């Protein structure tokens, strides 16, 4: 099992909250390593998140819900 953290996008504010703006992979769907699974956003800056490993991906947060940087947003089994 691999957890995928919300990336550290704001070094100055390590506790900054962001959101998953878009999920590109559905809950329970298979992903390949390196595939873009989500677009996340802190303030108005957005970034793609890639799957570190291949497997079945589970979303841990819904689109638009506040998440702290570093907290897990997905799990890949």
């Amino acid at each position, binding site marked *: 099992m691999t957890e995928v953290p919300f990336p550290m996008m704001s070094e100055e504010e390590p506790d900054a909250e962001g*959101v998953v*703006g*878009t999920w*590109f*992979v559905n809950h329970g*769907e*298979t*992903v*390949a390593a390196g*595939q*873009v699974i989500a*677009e996340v*956003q802190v303030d*108005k800056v*957005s970034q793609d998140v890639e799957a570190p490993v*291949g*497997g*079945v991906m589970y979303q841990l947060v819904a689109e638009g819900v506040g998440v702290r940087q570093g907290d897990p947003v997905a799990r890949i*089994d």
Partner: protein
Amino acid sequence: MTSTETPTRRITTAKAMAEGIALEMRRDPAVFVMGEDVGAYGGIFGSTTDLFAEFGADRVIDTPISETGFIGAGIGAAVEGLRPVVELMFIDFYGVCMDQITNHMAKIHYESGGNVTVPMVLMAATGGGYSDAAQHSQCLWGTFAHLPGIKVVVPSNPYDAKGLMISAIQDDNPVLYLFHKGAQGLVWMEKNPRSIAHVPEESFTVPIGQAAIARQGTDVTIVTLSLSVQHSLDVAEQLVGEGISVEVIDLRSLVPLDTETVLTSVAKTGRVLVVDEDYRSFGLTGEIAAVIAEHDPTMLKKPFRRLAVPDVPIPYARVLEQAVLPTRDKITDHVKELMS
């Protein structure tokens, strides 16, 4: 756990546009991009995302705020053999550069007796729904489709956005490519899941001038385009529960207009609603009515219906803006009235 299922690559409409441009830039060194904030910023609606990093400042050129200047420069480059993709940030800004668009880009091929081609793509953001008011919310595709000499394409989803972009760049005629901000799949805007979809990684084309049957149905035909296709598909899914079968035609191109697909569908259902986010009078809705009337008005079991923006500037206040836009609720009401 390992799975044998194949991963599905989904991307936004914005990314699909950029991917189409990137594929053509890799294939053909004559293709380049020019416009306001198309470089490091990637286009304010994401249409040129990541192009600057790959192709650099020589082929992805940020311009000053002078639409007449850079559209004119694009036309000059095109007649000299390059294939520019020029972004006009909002179609609403056409007022300052219309002479370049309609008197030059559109007419040089005619006026040169066919000796000079203008293989140029002019892309621009259209549409409202996010309180950007009267000067940043218009669609205006009817205005450009009315003027001869320009092909006009209007994608509604990621697959068509990529395929139409590649077709537009490869076309030797000037093509106006109008993308709806609300269908780009941007994280900072209200978005329909239909703006994020599977798109093949490789190059492919969607033919200009060919409508798509976005959903098959038997009771009512909705003829529409752009973001209104997404709304119409949502409505069609809802109405299944009420026993109404809606066919949705996504025009995808206005010039050339695929009248055959429209007429075939209307002949089948006998009931038609045209949904258009552009202004009502002298536009697409009236044009489709004329196409049907010229062909065979007896195809219609019920009088022709249209839903478009009443002839007012798009309001800023959300409640007023929603009152003039072709929303799902209004589309639903029109379909039900056709079935009553």
